[in-house]
């Protein structure tokens, strides 16, 4: 038996975390919960997950964006830079500006995928599997 893939779930809503954890464990993934950007930063470095599910709006409007940007671009996270990040969010637009995947103008790396909240269990599992296979 191979060890199950580890998924870091960063979301400030405990109920949402519980529900998504149920989905992930049903597919035998190991779930590492984090209740906000700070804990998320800590755990991605400490636990080296295979994939990150990241909420966009937590304490402030752009928490998820900043965290994703840091992980993909800053030196501090060099060791985990390649970890796939999937945005899980109920917002598609922030004050009219749409998400830029894979960087935008500055050529900076962005999230690897995006899923609407609430997530369809089958859809979530299929996307995770797709990114883990890469």
């Amino acid at each position, binding site marked *: 038996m191979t060890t199950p893939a580890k998924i870091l779930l960063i979301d400030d809503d405990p109920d949402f975390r519980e*529900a*998504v954890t149920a*989905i992930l464990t049903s597919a035998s993934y190991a779930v590492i919960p984090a209740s906000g950007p700070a804990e998320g930063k800590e755990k991605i470095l400490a636990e080296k997950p295979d994939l990150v599910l990241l909420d966009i709006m937590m304490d402030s*409007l752009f928490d998820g964006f900043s965290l994703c940007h840091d992980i993909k671009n800053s030196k501090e996270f060099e060791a985990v830079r390649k970890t796939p990040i999937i945005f899980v969010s109920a917002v598609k637009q*922030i004050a009219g500006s749409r998400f830029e995947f894979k960087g935008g103008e500055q050529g900076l790396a962005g999230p690897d995928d995006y899923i609407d909240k609430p997530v369809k*269990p089958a859809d979530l599992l299929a996307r995770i599997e797709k990114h883990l296979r890469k």
Partner: protein
Amino acid sequence: MRESQDLILIIDDEETIRDSCVQILVKSGYAAETAENGETGIQKIRDLRPDAVIVDLKMPGMSGFDVLENLRVIDPQIMAIVITGYATVDSAVEAMKKGAYDFLPKPFTPEELRMILARALEHRKLALEAEALRREKELLEENMITMVSHQLRSPLVAIQQYFEVLLAGMAGSLEEKTREMIRKASDRLVRLLDLINDWLDLARIDTGRLVGKLKPLDLRPALGKLVEFMAPLARESDMAISWDAPEGPLSSVLGDEETLEQVFTNLISNAIKFNKPHGRVSVRIGEERDDVLVEVQDTGIGISKEDLPRIFDQFVQISRRADKKLKGSGLGLSIAKKIIEAHGGRIDVKSEPGTGSTFTVRLPKSHPETASP
């Protein structure tokens, strides 16, 4: 009492003036810095960001006027008071034109300096407060919609997420009756989330933020794809759907693809939803004078004359829905209208009760005179 000490920079080549100014200012509770020429002065403005600058107009090398010009570029909110040895009205006016707030003719008394400086700093304080307020208001407006949306949606999303888990059997198996009720509750919740989305879309258009950047857009392939995408939905309801576009050149429009797609998705799905059994939906594109024209026609129950004028109003659920399951928020068409109008276009409807309805969208060509291939 000031909360923090204001920093005043004195730029003057005469040591006695610098010293006396510093003395006066420090005694009055200000922090003071000095520079003996214009170059040093500008460097100190950059490094120290003083609240106000007192500058001699006539200095060897860089003049006070040059300092003023630089100051305006570095930070126009820093107050400038000029010292004029030759107190002519002309040089004072010239200095004010270059952004000075006031002037001090030499020789001046400590009281004159204090008074003019106090007035300048009061002006700065008010200007900064007004600026901060304006920025805060802008930010509030921008974030308000997003925050409200987030706070309304978060609890509902969590509930719906639990439902999804339960319905997927991931928290244990459910009895048929239980599953059925959870499914109904979940359906209602999805509708509520849709309603909130629609409402927020409307709020965004009202603040002018829904429609993104307008770019030249060829509607023909975009619409063709959309019809293809909607075809399974039509088949499911036993409808025929047709797509009619001219072979030749067709002008592009200035549009935001995402919101326009939202409009046409809404029109086509309405045409399917409100059609007769085995009905037909026709989507056409063409040109008419300076507009590109898109028509979505159905063979449905139509809209009565009384309802026709109200069909684009918000929250109107007109009677053509009566025999159908109540679906949607009643905002779709008013959103469509606002999006089209934000593009400088028009949306109209013609309907014959019992025969069908035709919705016509007109969008201005991006280059009215020349048709692009």
